[in-house]
């Protein structure tokens, strides 16, 4: 058990981070060079002011008409994304590991709060699953990969919750937790999870078009 543990926290963790960073950099680079070659107009029309104006509206809860039309989805989406980012970065057990390995540390979330936020992520994944199955317009678009991605995102949080509470099978769960986290990292550049990095560009471009050419709002 111990050797598996050191493998997943050692070489595998390195590999996961390298693939995540390298893969993301590669995707950015290939999209950028393709855009330079084929979509020169994107660079022509990109406009920082209007890009930020649009992004700002879309990052503000209930800042757009559509968010108001779908209040439940709005609340869940915002809560989900916020917790999804904050928990892994600021949960005490993770910060400790950074401290032990690299002697760097930062602010940590109180245990109860981190626990609640983990539940928010798990609940949100359940909500997304429910939407995928129950709403015809979402089900029509859904592929097997979409379910898989949802599972990949939920897994580290479910296992993490388990580990934190030290329930039965805790050592195995720890390894599963680390593994699932690594799988998620690796999946980001190669799946639709990459949307987190592309959002500012797609939204920013539409915001630029609407702001500087179409002279209209896009929210």
């Amino acid at each position, binding site marked *: 058990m111990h050797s598996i543990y050191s493998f997943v926290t050692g070489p595998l963790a390195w590999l996961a981070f390298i693939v995540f960073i390298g893969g993301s950099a590669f995707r950015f680079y290939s*999209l*950028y060079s*393709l*855009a330079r*070659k*084929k*979509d020169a*107009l*994107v660079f*022509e*029309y990109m406009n920082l002011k209007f890009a930020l104006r*649009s992004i700002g509206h*879309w990052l503000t809860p209930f800042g*757009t*008409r*559509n968010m108001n*039309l*779908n209040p439940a*989805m709005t609340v869940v989406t915002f809560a989900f994304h916020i917790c999804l980012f904050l928990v892994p970065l600021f949960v005490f057990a993770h910060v400790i590991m950074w401290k032990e390995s690299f002697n760097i540390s930062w602010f940590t979330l109180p245990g109860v709060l981190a626990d609640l936020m983990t539940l928010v992520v798990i609940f949100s994944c359940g909500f997304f699953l429910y*939407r995928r199955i129950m*709403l*015809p*317009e*979402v*089900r*029509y*678009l*859904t*592929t097997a990969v*979409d379910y898989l991605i949802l599972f990949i995102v939920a897994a580290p949080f479910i296992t993490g919750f388990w580990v934190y509470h030290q329930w039965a099978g805790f050592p195995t769960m720890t390894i599963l937790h680390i593994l699932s986290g690594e799988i998620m990292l690796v999946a980001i550049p190669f799946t*639709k999870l*990459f*949307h987190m990095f*592309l*959002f500012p*560009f*797609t*939204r920013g*471009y*539409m*915001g630029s078009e*609407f702001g500087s*050419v*179409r*002279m*209209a*709002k*896009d*929210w």
Partner: protein
Amino acid sequence: MTESKAVKDTAIDDQGIIKGIEQLSPEKIERVINQVLKSETGARLKTYVDTCVHCGLCSDGCHYFLAHDRDPKYSPAAKVKQTLWEIIRKKGKVTPEFIENAAVVAYTQCNLCKRCAMYCPFGLDIAYVMSVMRRICHKLGVVPLYIQDTAHSHSVTKNQMWIKDDEWVDTLMWQEEEAQDEVENLRIPLDKEGADVFYSVIGPEPKFRAQLIYQAAVIMNAAGENWTMPSMPGWDNSDMCMYTGDYEMMERLKKAHFEAAANLKVKKIVMGECGHAFRSVYDMGNRALGWKMPPLEVIHAIEYYNDLFVKEKIKIKKKFDRPVTLHDPCNIVRGRGLHEMSRNIVNATCKNFIEMTPNREHNYCCVAGGGVINCGPPFKNARVDSGKIKAEQLFAAKAKGAEVVIAPCHNCHGGLEDIIHHYGIDMELKFFGDIIYEILELPE
């Protein structure tokens, strides 16, 4: 898998599509698709297709989806699924039947109105994806017959309606003569070099709505405008080639239009009340020709009329007294932000204004735009059915008292006329030009 109705629940009765499909082979499809994808698309299309997280949030953006009681196959992302999504996944290896459905989706189930871009959190441009699909269909020769006919007319005559050069000039002179009964010495100055305003219209105006040219002439005359209209091709600012996917022709048309104005050394182009034509000169045609913005100042009639009121160049006898509501056309509102100017004109000309909701950028489309109405009778019933949500919006405005709908766009007129008739809404449709002409105080 889904409870949406089978796609081919109504057999397609369009000879352009049927004949086009008959001539396809899997090899040809694959070759053409890959040629378009490789040479004409790039990171934008890839990002739009790859980034879509299949969340369905764009659905509420599309009037087709809303009008069809939330039938999932009409959501914007579903249209990508039925077209480019599969095409990219299969690397172009799709069947003629697939192309048949894709053509129907791209040409008749999307108005390219870009409303959904304001509902998708990522701002994914479904209208652009549908344009790419149309481009592929154009290259495959699978285009609805009626709109292809207008594209043919464009390429033969440089206007949309097979109008011959002498018929065009005759029409202008006929309208001038008619107007002279009302305003003595009124002129429609042809080819006047150095005029301040070059007035261009769409092909259907001289063909079906010549009185609009008459009215514009009376308004220009009342404003004391130094204006002109061209006697030669280039007078038609419309562009169905933009919608069939024939971008080479779109470029030729826009070039002819800009050059007609440039040759006369005019200060600016003023376009009649048309939306798609404005899109073609302000958004798509200029870009295709390599101009970031139009090479000459081009303004829509709304901007022109607004200016007349702001600068008090025309006077009115009295305000139009029947209650009006205003339809915001996608191509000049989401396309050029003219919604507040439109309201300025309404307030300057009408006594009683009732907003329809949603309005401005969020207004529902007339379902005619994007060339959909130009696909003609084979698709008329489907189009009018898709106008259900628009009909409800109009009924609501009517319930608040509106009797007249102002729609400053030709396409919208066509679409709204059909909707008003089919659903028995009983409202009257008008252009701004109609209203201004009606209440205009003619100078002594």
